[in-house]
């Protein structure tokens, strides 16, 4: 009983903070999502409109398009980061000259604020002054303009996200790989297992929890990407890079449509939770032992 009470006392500050900064805002957003509310209108009162916002959202072509673009972005970015991050982690597990220097350089993007990353990439991608369009044109004869080409804008954002966040994946996978015991690998080698068998049957199952946790973090981050994209393309050209975060921003701030913006936020939260839960069920959840 004593240890139980002590546990609750130690947990109490976290729970109070979580309640005020997590639960309460969520309940408020949920409440607002059932209203029509423009606080800057002549009549700023909240008008309860039942499920009308949700009724509207399933026919909102701009929102559905933004969900599609976001899902594509998340898929390409997170999968690439995971693959590149794994190979980099494996590389950093070996000894080579200048390893510490390369590891520091490789981790630098991680400490940059997303808004700075967006502005740096905007400078690098601007056709007249940017280094990337200049050399792409000089070496390969390719003309790139993210202001007019939707494919170029989308690809640039994916590459920018990979550049920014792969170090996080590398660091977590290095931590997972370092903590693996040597015995199973030695036994597998004695039994004649090749590298591919060792990876699929030993390494991957043992680092699966770390991989899933990393994908959770990246998935949640990528689904709410706003600042980098806002800085680099502003959601354009057209709606090619109008991710849900940018869509919510445009709906809430320029249009001051708080009720509908909250509805979109709730739906995006729902999609994020479902995606993470499906990932957990697929990779980690204990299977039911019932036969048949």
């Amino acid at each position, binding site marked *: 009983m004593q240890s139980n009470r002590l546990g609750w006392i130690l947990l109490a500050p976290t729970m109070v903070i979580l309640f005020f900064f997590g639960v309460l805002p969520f309940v408020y957003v949920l409440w607002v999502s059932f209203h029509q509310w423009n606080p800057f209108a002549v009549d700023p009162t909240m008008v309860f409109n039942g*499920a009308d916002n*949700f009724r509207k959202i399933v026919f909102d072509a701009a929102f559905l398009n933004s969900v599609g673009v976001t899902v594509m972005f998340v898929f390409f970015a997170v999968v690439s980061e995971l693959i590149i991050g794994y190979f980099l982690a494996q590389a950093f597990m070996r000894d080579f000259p200048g390893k510490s220097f390369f590891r520091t350089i490789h981790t630098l993007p991680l400490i940059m604020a997303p808004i700075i990353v967006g502005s740096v990439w905007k400078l690098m991608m601007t056709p007249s002054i940017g280094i990337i369009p200049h050399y792409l044109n000089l070496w390969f004869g390719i003309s790139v303009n993210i202001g007019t080409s939707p494919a170029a804008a989308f690809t640039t954002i994916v590459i920018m996200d990979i550049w920014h966040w792969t170090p996080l994946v590398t660091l977590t996978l290095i931590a997972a790989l370092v903590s693996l015991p040597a015995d199973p690998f030695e036994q597998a080698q004695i039994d004649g297992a090749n590298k591919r068998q060792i990876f699929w049957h030993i390494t991957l199952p043992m680092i699966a929890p770390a991989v899933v946790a990393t994908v959770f973090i990246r998935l949640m981050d990528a689904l709410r990407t706003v600042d980098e994209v806002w800085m680099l393309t502003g959601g354009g050209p057209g709606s090619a890079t109008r991710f849900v975060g940018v869509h919510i921003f445009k709906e809430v701030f320029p249009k001051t449509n708080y009720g509908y913006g909250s509805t979109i936020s709730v739906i995006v939260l729902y999609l994020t939770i*479902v995606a993470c839960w499906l990932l957990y069920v697929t990779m980690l959840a*204990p299977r*039911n032992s019932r036969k048949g």
Partner: protein
Amino acid sequence: MSKETPLASVHLAEEEPVELPVEKPGFLPIETNWFDRLFISVVIWVALSLFWFRFIEPMGLSIWISNAIALGLAVWIIRKG
């Protein structure tokens, strides 16, 4: 043999046996507790409601039918899942 408890097992005698919750395996393919099944029910309820708004309600069927179906599913999943 003395009837007194041996010194080495005194600490064992003081501890109450811990009863682990034994649940019958349900039809869901993963191990769940009642809160997991409530969560699954809410996820299905929201998905069904959005599907209903998009495809069924324009044909004239009320959202309350979807809510009733979701409630029935929730009871079934929580009790048998």
